[in-house]
C-alpha cells in the first residue's frame, strides 16, 4: 500500500543513473566543443587582450601624478565640476597612500575595457531591439536569464572554454554587465517622441539620418543611464572575476575572505567603492550636460 502511493509524497524524479548520464553527456559535449574551438575563440579575443594589457601597462608604468592629472582632466571633461575633480584627486591620493595603487590601476583598466566592449555590443543590440519587435521578443528573455542567473554559474562554461586568465574574466564581466545598456538603449529609442520622428520622416530623412540625427540623440539620457549602470555592475563583478584570475582590487578582497583579514578586505572594498562613485558622478554629470537644452524649460 505505502509503496503504491509513495510517488504522491516523494517527487517522481528522474532515475539517478539517468540524471548522471545526462549531466555527463552535456559536460562531455561541451568539453569536446571547447577542446575543438577553445583556442580559436581565444585567438578571436587576442586584440582585446592586447588592448587590455597595453592599457594596464600604460597605467602601471606612468608616474602616479601623471595618472592623477589625466584622471582629473577626464573627470573635468566629463563633468565640468570642481567638486568631482577634487573628489577624484583625493580618492586617488588616499588609495595610493594605502598601498592599493597598482591594483586600482589594474581594476581601472579592466573596467574601461569591459565598459567599451559592453557599449560596442550593447548599443547595436539595443538599436536592433528597438527596430524590431521580433528581436525584442527574443532578446528580452535572454537578458532576464543573464541578469538573474547567479554570476558564478556562467563562470563555469567561460572557464571551461578559455581557462583562467584575463580574457575569460573580461568575458564574464561583460556578460554580467552588458544587459543595462541593451535594455536602456532599446527603451530610450522606443520612447522617442513619435511626432519628432514623424517630422524627420516627413522631411525625407533616410533611415540612418533618422537613427543618428534623432533617435540616438533623443535616447541619450537613457543610454547614458545604461552605461552608468553597466559600469557599476562591472565594478561589482570585479571580486567574482578575480576568482578566475583577473588581477586587481578583487584579489585582495578574495584573499581577505579566505584568511579573515577584515581590514584588508575593508580597504580594498572601499577603493572599489571610491572608483564606483567617481565613475558614477562623472558619467552622470556628463549625461546631464548632454541635456543642457532641457534647462530653462518653458512649462
Amino acid at each position, binding site marked *: 500500500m505505502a509503496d503504491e502511493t509513495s510517488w504522491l509524497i516523494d517527487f517522481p524524479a528522474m532515475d539517478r543513473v539517468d540524471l548522471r548520464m545526462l549531466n555527463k553527456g552535456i559536460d562531455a559535449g561541451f568539453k569536446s566543443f571547447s577542446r575543438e574551438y577553445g583556442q580559436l575563440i581565444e585567438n578571436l579575443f587576442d586584440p582585446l587582450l592586447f588592448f587590455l594589457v597595453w592599457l594596464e601597462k600604460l597605467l602601471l608604468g606612468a608616474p602616479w601624478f601623471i595618472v592623477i592629472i589625466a584622471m582629473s582632466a577626464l573627470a573635468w571633461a566629463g563633468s565640468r565640476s570642481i567638486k568631482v575633480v577634487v573628489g577624484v584627486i583625493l580618492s586617488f591620493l588616499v588609495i595610493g597612500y594605502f598601498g592599493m595603487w597598482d591594483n586600482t590601476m589594474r581594476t581601472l583598466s579592466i573596467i574601461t575595457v569591459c565598459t567599451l566592449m559592453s557599449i560596442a555590443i550593447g548599443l547595436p543590440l539595443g538599436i536592433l531591439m528597438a527596430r524590431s519587435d521580433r528581436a525584442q521578443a527574443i532578446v528580452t528573455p535572454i537578458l532576464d536569464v543573464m541578469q538573474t542567473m547567479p554570476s558564478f554559474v556562467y563562470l563555469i562554461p567561460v572557464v571551461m572554454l578559455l581557462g583562467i586568465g584575463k580574457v575569460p574574466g573580461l568575458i564574464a564581466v561583460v556578460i554580467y554587465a552588458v544587459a543595462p545598456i541593451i535594455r536602456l538603449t532599446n527603451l530610450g529609442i522606443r520612447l522617442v*517622441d513619435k*511626432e*519628432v520622428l*514623424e*517630422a*524627420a*520622416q*516627413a*522631411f*525625407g*530623412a*533616410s533611415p540612418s*539620418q533618422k537613427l543618428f*540625427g*534623432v533617435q540616438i*540623440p*533623443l535616447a*541619450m539620457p537613457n543610454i547614458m543611464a545604461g552605461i552608468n549602470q553597466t559600469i557599476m555592475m562591472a565594478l561589482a563583478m570585479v571580486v567574482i572575476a578575480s576568482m578566475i584570475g583577473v588581477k586587481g582590487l578583487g584579489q585582495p578582497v578574495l584573499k581577505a575572505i579566505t584568511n579573515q583579514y577584515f581590514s584588508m578586505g575593508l580597504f580594498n572594498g572601499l577603493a572599489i567603492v571610491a572608483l564606483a562613485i567617481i565613475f558614477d558622478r562623472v558619467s552622470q554629470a556628463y549625461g546631464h550636460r548632454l541635456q*543642457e*537644452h*532641457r534647462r*530653462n*524649460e*518653458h512649462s
Partner: protein
Amino acid sequence: MSDNIKISVKGLYKIFGSEADRMVNLVKDGVGKQQLLEEYRHVLGLKDINLDIETSKLHVVMGLSGSGKSTLIRHLNRLIDPTAGEILVNGKDIVHLNDAELQDYRRHDISMVFQRFGLLPHRKVFDNVAYGLNIQKLPSAEIKERAMRWIERVGLSGFEDHYPTQLSGGMQQRVGLARALATDADILLMDEAFSALDPLIRTDMQTMLLELQTELNKTIVFITHDLDEALRIGDHIAILRDGMMIQQGGPQDIVMNPADDYIVDFIRDINRGRVVHLEKVMDSEILSGVEGGLHATMALEDALPLVTSCEAQCLPVVDDNGKPIGSISVDSIAKAMARPGDAPTTVIR
C-alpha cells in the same frame, strides 16, 4: 483632370489592423465602423475618400476628434500607407513610389507642420529650421542663407541660438513653420498646427499664415477641429465624420447648406453674418432707379446697418464693375443670419 488640381485623392480607404486587405472588402460591402471594430477587431480609419485639392489654395479638413483627419493628411506624404485607393500629386501616383522616390518626394515636394511642433529638442532654432536642408545635404552656405531668411520671415531673428524648449508655444510653432517653408516645397501640410496655442496667439499665427500665403501661393492642407479657424482661413472646407467625407465646399456653402445634422451642430454657434456674403443670399430682382449699391462680397453683418438705414429697407447689389446684379433686403439678411434648425419653442406676445 483639370490643370489646377494639385492633389487628387480617389477612393481612399484606410483600415488599421493585421488583415486590412481582407477587411476593406467587407467595408465596401457595407460593414460599418462599429461593426468592424466589434466583430472583426479592425479600426476603420478612412472610407471612400474622394478629394481634389486645388493649386495655391488653402484647403481645410475639419472633423471632431477621431474622425480621421490626421490619418487623411498623413496619407498625402505617405507617413501612412493606404489600404486601397489612389493619391495623385501633380497627376502622378504617389502610392507606389519606391523608397528612394518617396524620400525625394518628401524632401522637395511636400512639407509638414505638426500639432505639438515636432521640433528636435537637442538642436537650436537655426538647426531646426535648417533641418530639411541638412537632410538634402545642401552646401552649408546655402543652408545658412535660406534658414536665416526664413527665421527672419517668421519673426524669430535673434533667437537662432536658443533651444526650442526656451521658447513659448507660439514661437516654437513659428520654428515649425519656418522649417516647413525652408525647403520650398509647393505643398504644405498642417495638422492642427495652431490647436495647441492660446486663442490670441492662434489668431496671430492665422494672420501670419494668410500673409505668407498671399505671397507664396502654396497649396496648403490645413487640419483643424475649430470651425472659426476653418472659416477664417479656408478657401475650401471638407468635413470628415467617422472616416467619411460628408461635405465639401466653400465656407459659405457649408454655412448656408449644411449637409446633415452633424454639420448643423458644427456651425450652430458661429457668426453667420460674418461668413456669408451678399451674393449668396441676394434676390435676383434688379432695383430700378436706385443709384450705387453694395458689393457682392460684403459680409451680411456689414451690410445690415446700411440696408436698415435706407428707406426702402432694400439696396442693390453690384459686381466688381459696379453693375447691379441683384438686390438685398433686411428680410433676406435676417433669414440668412438665423440659425437653421432652431424652431422657436415659445413666442412671447
